[in-house]
């Protein structure tokens, strides 16, 4: 890793510099910024990176964090084996 390089999204290997560049290109909507850079689309599904990126976007757009909205949060909370879902095992604890 180069000196001074700040990684924002570890799953997809995206640096702060790349986020700043994308925002300057015009991806100022968190939803499109996510799709352009790939942040929040890896195995952690945004748990470690989304707020970092929101903070950078807020700072550059002169907004407060309270004014920012997250992207749509989608299931599952953690990756699940397709085999388990196919067998209906994810409902084992029900009832």
């Amino acid at each position: 890793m180069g000196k001074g390089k700040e990684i924002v999204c570890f799953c997809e290997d995206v640096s702060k510099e790349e986020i700043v560049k994308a925002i300057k290109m015009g991806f100022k909507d968190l939803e499109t910024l996510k799709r352009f850079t790939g942040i929040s689309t890896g195995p952690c599904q945004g748990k470690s990176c989304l707020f970092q990126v929101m903070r950078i976007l807020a700072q550059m757009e002169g907004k407060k964090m309270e004014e920012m909205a997250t992207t749509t949060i989608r299931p599952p909370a953690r990756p699940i084996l397709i085999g388990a879902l196919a067998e209906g095992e994810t409902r084992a604890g029900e009832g």
Partner: protein
Amino acid sequence: MLEKAEVVVIGGGVVGLSVAYNLVKRGVGKVSVLERRYLGSGASTRNCCGIRSQFGAEENIRLARESKKIFQGLTAELGFNILHIKGGCMMLASTPEEAEILERNVRLQNRLGVNTRLLNPGELRARFPYLNPDKIRAASFDPTDSKAHHDAVVMAYSEACRRLGVELNTYTEVKGFKVEGKAIRAVKTSRGEVKCSRVVNAAGVWSRQVARMAGVNLPNRPLRAEGMVTEPFHYFLDPTIVHLNGPLELTQTLRGELVGGLADGEDFSLNLNSSLSFAENFCKRAVEIFPRLKFANLMRQWAGYFDVTPDGSPVLGPAEEVENFFQANGFSGHGFTLAPVVGRLLAEVIAKGKATPSLEPFYPSRFREGKLIVENTAPVDRLSWASTLPEASSSAPSR
């Protein structure tokens, strides 16, 4: 926002952006795109990235064949990598009825110069060892079909539009129209009014609602579907796999994740909540045909929708009731494949004021005239409401 534009395009999805891009490229003047959320927020980026010409209606095959050619050079044309790869598309059938559809479609495609082939069981096993042959009665394969990353395609078109001076208005909702005689004079939006000479309705599942505001009846309905993506893997899966029952789709993008989806069921709501029942149903059926999938982790799921028409083919061209109101909707699950060619052909019709032969069969008037383009690979075929022609024509314009 502009006060006046030559053309207003309603819908900032892949179809609307392709139409807008082709319009400015032809030099028709100022083009303004109105999008209620963010660009590509609807079906454009909720699909499974497949591009094919394996259709059952001649008109659709002809359009898709042209679209595939445009996709091949799209990265260069738009100056943005759309992660396109010619991995082929394999369509699968499990029942005798589905097998018959594939056989019939392959004959038609071959007659139109598309080199689709039915694979025999030996070939299927040798070329696609990861598929379970016990669950597959027939398979058709066209090596010239392809896939591209849906987000990248939307961004490629939107960046090209931006460069060429198209006004892209996000979070701008259409509230109504100013109609005089048989023409729209202005579009009323949540952010003000735009005067215009022509309007394009590329609003996807909202197209019917949008059209109604201008006094135009469309027979389109939204059909709910859901999708999922796995953790990324080393790239191994070239073809897009489409199982006719559903359809169920599965492929791998060049980013490595496996993308899959299923339109099974008859939910016509715009509900975008993901469901556990989809995840279970999809996974069960996907593992049946692709057993080793059970070792992959499902990472994210989402919901989407198809804008379906009674015949499973798109609605393209001017409305009968309002002559400067062009439709580009009702794609019934094939908007991603057809967006490049539809953008080109519609821009030509709008710029020249003259129809092209490949577009004319798709005019909205076909529902009133009963000249349906029945597409047997569209999800709509399996719905009882769609198979009844009188119902379809009763919702068409009465004039």
